[in-house]
């Protein structure tokens, strides 16, 4: 068997997220160089703030300003920063309890090396030059040996508050389709369509996924199907899809290739859309350099008998 196919796969997702009143105040505050916490019913101040007390589940929104200076409660030296992390040179991850807060905030500490970091050390916020209302408005923390800063007592009300963030993410993968689908894709390269036959129920799956979903066993016997097939059912598409250069209306159909145990789908062309019918015999049309059939067209044969494809609907 030839080598398993592999290809880079990048998944990117820019989630747009709404902020409630507490998160909005906190992130707007960062934009304005103000750090806000929220006071719980028993008087503790949580920074970063949350909307519900983690102990009592009570809604909380009593905002209180804390200092941009604080104490490291624990740390970890990161000698090899990864993509997206706050600093691109070695740094310490730190949990920092800001002066006036009872809980700790996670961020990066800019320090020359691990010997310069310890639990209990004093640090202060280094603000990003450009701030938009995001946790990254804190560029990082830096060592600080002065007095605790005195917060001005900001109450958390801002003009032009940030109400949402875009949480962009990107993950990189190497996609491999596995044994069965590799065989299918390679055969397509030779303009052949192959399925796999279930050893128990003898059904031929196209495209093969390596297992028979009815019998729950591996399918390994490779079977060439088609090239011609029969339209088992179809629909007429009347709305043009974005970035798709096909005139509407057109027909999208389920096509049972000869020898296949289930239908795959494809577009029908070479016949007026209103003359496509169940039982129509079709064959694939490959365009130059294509890696799969562009569409299917009538073969000119008589229509297939209903009984020959009724199990494949």
């Amino acid at each position: 068997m030839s080598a398993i196919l592999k290809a880079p796969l990048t998944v990117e997702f820019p989630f747009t997220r709404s902020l409630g009143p507490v998160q909005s105040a906190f992130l707007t505050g960062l934009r304005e160089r103000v750090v806000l916490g929220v006071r719980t019913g028993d008087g503790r101040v949580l920074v970063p703030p949350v909307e519900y007390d983690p102990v009592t589940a009570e809604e909380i929104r009593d905002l209180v300003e804390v200092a941009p200076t604080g104490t490291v409660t624990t740390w970890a030296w990161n000698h090899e920063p990864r993509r997206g992390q706050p600093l691109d040179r070695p740094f310490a991850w730190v949990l920092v309890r800001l002066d006036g807060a009872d809980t700790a905030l996670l961020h990066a500490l800019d320090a020359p090396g691990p010997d310069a970091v310890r639990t209990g050390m004093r640090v202060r916020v280094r603000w990003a030059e450009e701030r938009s209302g995001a946790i990254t408005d804190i560029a990082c923390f830096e060592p600080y040996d002065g007095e605790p800063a005195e917060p001005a007592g900001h109450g958390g009300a801002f003009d032009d508050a940030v109400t949402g963030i875009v949480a962009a993410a990107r993950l990189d993968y190497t996609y491999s389709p596995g044994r069965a689908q590799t065989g299918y894709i390679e055969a397509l390269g030779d303009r052949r369509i192959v399925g796999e036959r279930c050893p128990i129920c003898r059904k031929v799956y196209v495209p093969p996924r390596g297992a028979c979903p009815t019998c729950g066993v591996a399918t390994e016997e490779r079977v060439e199907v088609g090239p011609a097939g029969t339209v088992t059912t179809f629909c007429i598409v009347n709305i043009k899809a974005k970035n798709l250069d096909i005139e509407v209306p057109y027909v999208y159909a389920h096509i049972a290739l000869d020898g296949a145990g289930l239908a795959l789908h494809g577009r029908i062309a070479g016949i007026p859309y209103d003359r496509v019918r169940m039982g129509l015999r079709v064959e694939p049309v490959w365009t130059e350099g294509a890696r799969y059939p562009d569409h299917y067209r009538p073969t000119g044969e008589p229509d297939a008998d209903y009984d020959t494809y009724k199990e494949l609907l």
Partner: protein
Amino acid sequence: MTREEAPGDRDIAVVAFAQTDHRRTSEELSEVEMLMPVLHEVMASTGLKTADIDFTCSGSSDYLAGRAFSFTLALDGVGAWPPISESHVEMDGAWALYEAWVKLRTGDADTALVYSYGKSSPGSVRDVLTRQLDPYYLAPLWPDSVALAALQAQALIDTGATDEPALAAIGARSRADAAANPHAQLRGSVPQGEYLVRPLRTGDCPPIGDGAAAVVLAAGERARELCDRPAWIRGIDHRVEAHGIGVRDLTDSPSTRIAAERAGVHERPVDTAELHAPFSSQEVILRKVLGLDESVCVNPSGGASAANPIMAAGLIRIGEAAARIHRGESDRALAHATSGPCLQQNLVAVLEGDPR
């Protein structure tokens, strides 16, 4: 309801367990191709056919392989036609087992198949796991799973509860024990290695790998028919911590403590504990909150230090504990599974064999 026993009193047991050999990569296999042999093995060991299974529940995560709804394709390996009763959790399979246990307790089902799988090899698992974090305050900073565990380890070292050599000894002991586990990814003597994120070295961190596991649960007499010595689930419970990392005391695990109490861990001593501690420092915390002393055999399989297929490693802890009862090597075992950063969510089960 025609049964004489009240559904809530039904005894449920793990009657079979199977797992893959865990490997750094299984790129030649699709997820269902990796999973299917395990499903066949666990079914064959009970003699059950798909049609005999009343309920199927699985655990996996699309983020690992970067594919949407990947669990639906994995269902091909189960044989889901004619239609079956099925459910899925986007969590470790231990939580799928919990759902199946509830289903059996209600009396709606007598048998259940639980499976889970994870292929970490297509992506970068340290980056992938950042996507499970709070999207407002944490995820934009991309703190990876090792970094968060390292913060927890340093906090623990600061309390004096452990130090770097003691942590190294945990990893070394686990991998030495794994020498007897043919499925483990890292076995025998493995160098402690360099710092990944200080204070954690390679040897303190779990291997990254692909793998799958499956168990069969059965109720009451059905369990006795299917297994010579069923591993009865005497108690099972799971709890979660506050999601804010900085709200928690990272050196403690109150959720594990409560889950253990509710599962009845302390009613009688256990002889075996399979702990899902991907990082060596987490074993220190779990031993403390579970009150395990030196008399308890901890992670004879090698634990997550030897193989940590994400989404399956917790279910494997339950399976390994059950298998020791099946083999007569344990009479009362504790199994623990975790999920999320720094032991955020914890499940504890107590398994027992019939008296000998």
